[in-house]
């Protein structure tokens, strides 16, 4: 296999891949209306592309295009060297397309509605690789009524591969023709010809200037068809621009170029559609961004509310704080006399705690109880809620029904403006929203309880330094030591001297009572110490939580849809890049022009939209 063949195959593969990519894109499920619209468009285009691919190997269909009287038929006659399509002085002359082909050309392979054409077969070298089609004009009909020249032309043009656009000094700026070309030129190669060189002035420069904004115009031929015909008939090779035009038709449209030209046409079609879709989606994106902003601000509002409520509740739940703090301190302190007392105190508390777990009335208290227990509890709570639809509970961190209703109301408006699928918001009925709110709340509380754990850890660590421990141990032991000293001294020393002085029960009772009081005083002092800075910690916690980001809001479906719409646009941009790269890779004969699809024109229609018929 030769290198050029390999290259050719490579090109074909890339085009196939591109088409596969586009059809993939068109099949993505989406909730965004503009995207759905574009997907339908691309699907339609791809189905048309399929029929184009069938003709890949057939000869190129080269059609004339131009205003009436610009010498389309004369040009065709001159090209084939004999009068085969009438060329005349009455307007319009040609009222039915005339197809001129080589006798050996298999016309059926062109996939054309042959019954609509006059068909002529002529044996001439120029027709070996192409089929010529002499078209009716676009500018005598005032509307595309059935059977009119315009209607016939519009039916034929999409099937053509190359257009020879003829014009004259009088007609090169005729609005009707220019408009029609804008429609016809998509997906075609163009050859530009100024006819009537015998009579008219050369206006090619001005014409090029007029065409430049929308078309690539590599060259404009200035021909005299009548002279060329007579030269041909005399067996001469036509001179001047006409000769070059024939060269271009035979070399640049030869069989080796067919696939390239058709690919290029196909890619132009794809590019036109993709640019259109890009601009459609691009127009829709701002509304999606608005929706995203609204969703985001909703989330912020949610977090602010929840953290505010959390702060209030944490501040009022002193007992729970104490218990958690004591528990943590006990673990850090290790075994010592004072810690035994603390442990005893905590143990008593836990006795109640086992019940108070069920008594934790609010979610914040629950968060305090600890992440692990809490989440389990919350899970069962949510389940319970689902079953009983007892949803007043979510009000506890600020997500009440009113707020949910309000957010739904507002988000629905944004989603509507962004053309999101209505189902996305509507299924989010209030019940559904409540469930979602419960999930959001659960997630929030889970984060919160982690932070609370950190606070407790920090506070307890800070208050179990060796110096603190020593101080409390010494203070505690001072009393115990004093009592022991008194008892020992009494027992071993005093009572030996005077048995009656042995300590009585009331001493032990007193000592016991004072011991309890002393322990309590120390515990209270210690607790105060523990709680010092707690408020500040809660404040920080609340602020931290307030700026934290919820990974999921109340409308996860919409969140997803927004992300998807951005992605789909990005994918389309990528496809558009690929198309442009591919288009540049296909090298064509240098005389062939075409429609310009400017990358800068991403948000404008690729071709100037014709301004209808002014007199209509």
């Amino acid at each position, binding site marked *: 296999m030769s290198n050029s063949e390999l290259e050719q195959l490579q090109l074909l593969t890339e085009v196939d891949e591109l088409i596969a990519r586009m059809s993939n894109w068109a099949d993505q499920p989406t909730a965004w209306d503009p995207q759905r619209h574009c997907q339908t468009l691309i699907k339609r285009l791809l189905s048309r592309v399929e029929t184009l691919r069938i003709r890949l190997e057939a000869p190129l269909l080269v059609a004339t295009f131009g205003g009436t009287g610009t010498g389309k038929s004369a040009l065709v006659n001159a090209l084939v060297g004999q009068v085969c399509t009438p060329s005349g002085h009455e307007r319009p002359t040609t009222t039915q397309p005339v197809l001129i082909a080589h006798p050996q050309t298999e016309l059926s392979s062109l996939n054309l509605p042959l019954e609509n054409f006059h068909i002529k077969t002529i044996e001439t070298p120029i027709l070996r690789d192409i089929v010529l089609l002499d078209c009716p004009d676009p500018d005598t009909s*005032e509307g595309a009524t059935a059977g009119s020249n315009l209607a016939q032309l519009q039916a034929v043009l999409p099937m053509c591969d190359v257009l020879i656009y003829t014009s004259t000094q009088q007609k090169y*700026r*005729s609005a009707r023709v220019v408009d029609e070309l804008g429609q016809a030129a998509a997906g075609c190669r163009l050859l530009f010809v100024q006819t009537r060189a015998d009579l008219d002035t050369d206006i090619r420069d001005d014409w090029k200037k007029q065409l430049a904004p929308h078309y690539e115009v590599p060259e404009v031929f200035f021909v005299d068809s009548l002279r060329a015909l007579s030269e041909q008939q005399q067996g001469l090779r036509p001179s001047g621009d006409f000769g070059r035009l024939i060269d271009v038709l035979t070399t640049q449209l030869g069989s080796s170029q067919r696939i390239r030209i058709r690919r290029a046409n196909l890619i132009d079609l794809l590019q036109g559609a993709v640019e259109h879709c890009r601009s459609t989606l691009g127009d829709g994106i701002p509304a999606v961004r608005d929706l995203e902003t609204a969703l985001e601000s909703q989330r912020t509002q949610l977090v602010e509310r929840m953290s505010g409520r959390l702060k209030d509740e944490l501040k009022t739940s002193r007992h729970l704080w104490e218990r958690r703090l004591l528990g943590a301190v006990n673990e850090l302190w290790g075994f010592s006399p004072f810690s035994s007392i603390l442990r005893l105190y905590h143990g008593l508390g836990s006795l109640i705690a086992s019940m108070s777990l069920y008594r934790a009335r609010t979610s914040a208290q629950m968060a305090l109880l600890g992440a692990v227990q809490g989440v389990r509890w919350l899970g069962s709570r949510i389940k319970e809620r689902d079953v009983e639809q007892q949803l007043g509970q979510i009000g506890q961190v600020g997500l009440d029904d009113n707020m949910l209703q309000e957010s739904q109301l*507002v988000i629905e*408006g944004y989603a509507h*403006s962004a053309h999101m699928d209505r189902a996305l918001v509507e299924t989010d009925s209030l019940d559904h929203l409540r469930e979602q709110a419960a999930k959001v709340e659960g997630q929030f509380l889970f984060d919160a309880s982690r932070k609370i754990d950190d606070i407790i850890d920090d506070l307890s660590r800070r208050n179990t330094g060796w110096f603190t421990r020593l101080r409390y141990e010494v203070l505690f032991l001072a009393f115990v030591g004093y009592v022991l000293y008194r008892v020992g001294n009494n027992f071993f020393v005093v009572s030996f001297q005077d048995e009656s002085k042995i300590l009585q029960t009331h001493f032990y009772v007193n000592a016991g009572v004072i011991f309890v009081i002393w322990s309590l005083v120390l515990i209270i002092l210690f607790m105060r110490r523990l709680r010092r800075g707690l408020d500040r910690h809660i404040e920080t916690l609340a602020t931290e939580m307030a700026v934290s980001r919820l990974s999921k809001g109340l409308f996860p479906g919409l969140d997803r849809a927004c992300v998807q719409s951005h992605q789909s646009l990005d994918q389309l941009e990528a496809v558009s890049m690929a198309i442009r790269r591919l288009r540049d890779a296909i090298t064509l004969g240098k005389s062939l022009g075409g429609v310009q699809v400017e990358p800068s024109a991403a948000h404008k229609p690729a071709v100037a939209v014709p301004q209808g018929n002014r007199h209509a």
Partner: protein
Amino acid sequence: MSTAFSQCAQIARDLHESLRQLEKSVKDLGCAPLSGREWYELLLQKLLPQLTDDAFLVTAVVGGTNIGKSVIFNHLAGERASATSPLASGTKHPVCLVPPGFQDKHSLSAIFQGFVLESWSKSEAALEETPQDRLFWRTSTAAPSNLLVLDTPDIDSDAPINWRRADMIRRSADVLIAVLTQQKYNDSAVKQFFRKAADEDKAIVIVFNQCLLPDDEQYWPVWLNTFCRETGIVPEYIYVAPNDRQAAEQNRLPFYERSWSPDDSSTASPSSTDRSHSLLEDISRLHFGDIKLRTLRGSLRQVIDAEQGLPSYLQELNTQSDEFASASQLLTAHKLAEIDNWPIVPNSAMIAEIRTWWSEQRTGWSAKVHEFYNSVGTGLAWPYRFAREKLAGKAAPPMDIYRNQEWSVILETVDKIFKQLHWICELGHPLLRPRLEKLLTGTNRSDVVHYLRKQHETIDLQQELHDRIAAELKLFRDESPDFYLFFKRLDETAAVARPALSIALFVTGFGPAGDAAAQFLGHSAMQSVFHVATDVAGGAVTAAVGETAISSTTSSGFGYLEARFRGLHAAFAAGRAQWLAEHIQKCLLGNLPEELQTAADIPKSAEFVRVQEILDQLNRFQLEYAPDSAVTADVPGEHNES
């Protein structure tokens, strides 16, 4: 005849004035503006300036781009008054030859309305591209004293501004010199342009330019036939000019006159008179008065033409305002929201309020005694209340709970209204849709919610309740013998069923829900756009209260009082719903319903009727002075032979 002229001129001025008034009042209808409508432009550019006794003719050279209009114009002028160029779409602005002394009698700016007049300085000025519509004039002795000759931009190039300027000149013109070529005589843009000229009854002079003589001698009758058949034109003169660039440049192009009759296309009269004619001379021989009358009449016919003229505009307004009427109907035919769970004021609050009112009614000794007991009671109850607050937390005041419940219902109602509006919007009414889309955006929704919340938070519900109860009880006291029993039984009243309310939109007065609502709402409320209907007498309420409660007592006894008490609740709820309805209307719909209604009433407006009257006048005038009636050529500005 001159009286007919001045009469017609007066009507035209009236018409113009009243049309301007009408346009101002219909700007909300969304119809295309008057300017740009062919008949209106004709009124403006032809009838208003030219309905004068002093007849002059406006002659314009018109045709497609790059077929030698300016060349022919220069031949008329006898000099290079307009620049020519081999490139298409060259002439951007009209150039006008004005006979000396013409401007003493006429104002050019009145004749060529819409153009900025500039005195001619050089021929290239007309090629300059400016957004402003300019008209270059120069004094020329070439033409007779009552003839204006113009060169115009093209009618078919890709510069639509050229077409517009050519159209403006066409409307003013009386004689059009139609330049045609082999390539362009059958172009759609050309045919459309000249069809209009034919409709306006312009005198047409056809010049086939750039002919390949003598070959084309056999073709031009065919071309002409097609052209006249397609456009309906009957030319005054026909000329053939050869394709001779050099002669054209040197202003010595020959124009050969040809005669032709539409019936028989073969009568080309070849070469018999191959004497070059002067176009200007031939034109000067036309009957100016006849042509003037003819073109004015033609334009007038276009103005009052049923299909394309003023009647079609009026018809369009009618249709459009019908659309508005149907939009208005669509919006009002649907109940915006039905609320069946309007919260009820807690009984405790209601009863407390009733007691307050009652104590205010007591006077003299009895009041003092009750005051004393009340103070004692409050004193005794204080420790209990204090203890309860400590234990169970401070109970929220009942009206705060109510306020909160009410807010949920308000939100729900607003949600329903939005859903309903969305549904109406989806029906796709072309007028309602864009308006409703604007209401349904997220920003607007959150604005509405914020507005309502602010209103709702600032309203004093306690005061509302107080006022409502005072009003209702006063009524009750005046009519009921069992008044005192009511207070005795007050505490026994059971739970009260919620009244069912619906908010509907009525633009015009009473509607189907009116009867039920009438007992609670004053007359003024009925006028309002929003409408609240309350239904408390329905079976649902009875069921909720309990059949037994009513049947087990005598009709004047507990059941009656119970109903009375419910009545209080319902009245309060209805009052609140009315409040809501008013605010929703204010912040959500604004004056949309009135706007729709006003637009729907346009055909009844004075401006509309006035235009209609003038149209009738014009129609009568047209009949009276129809071409076949006695009026003919005795117009000033005689038969003109120079």
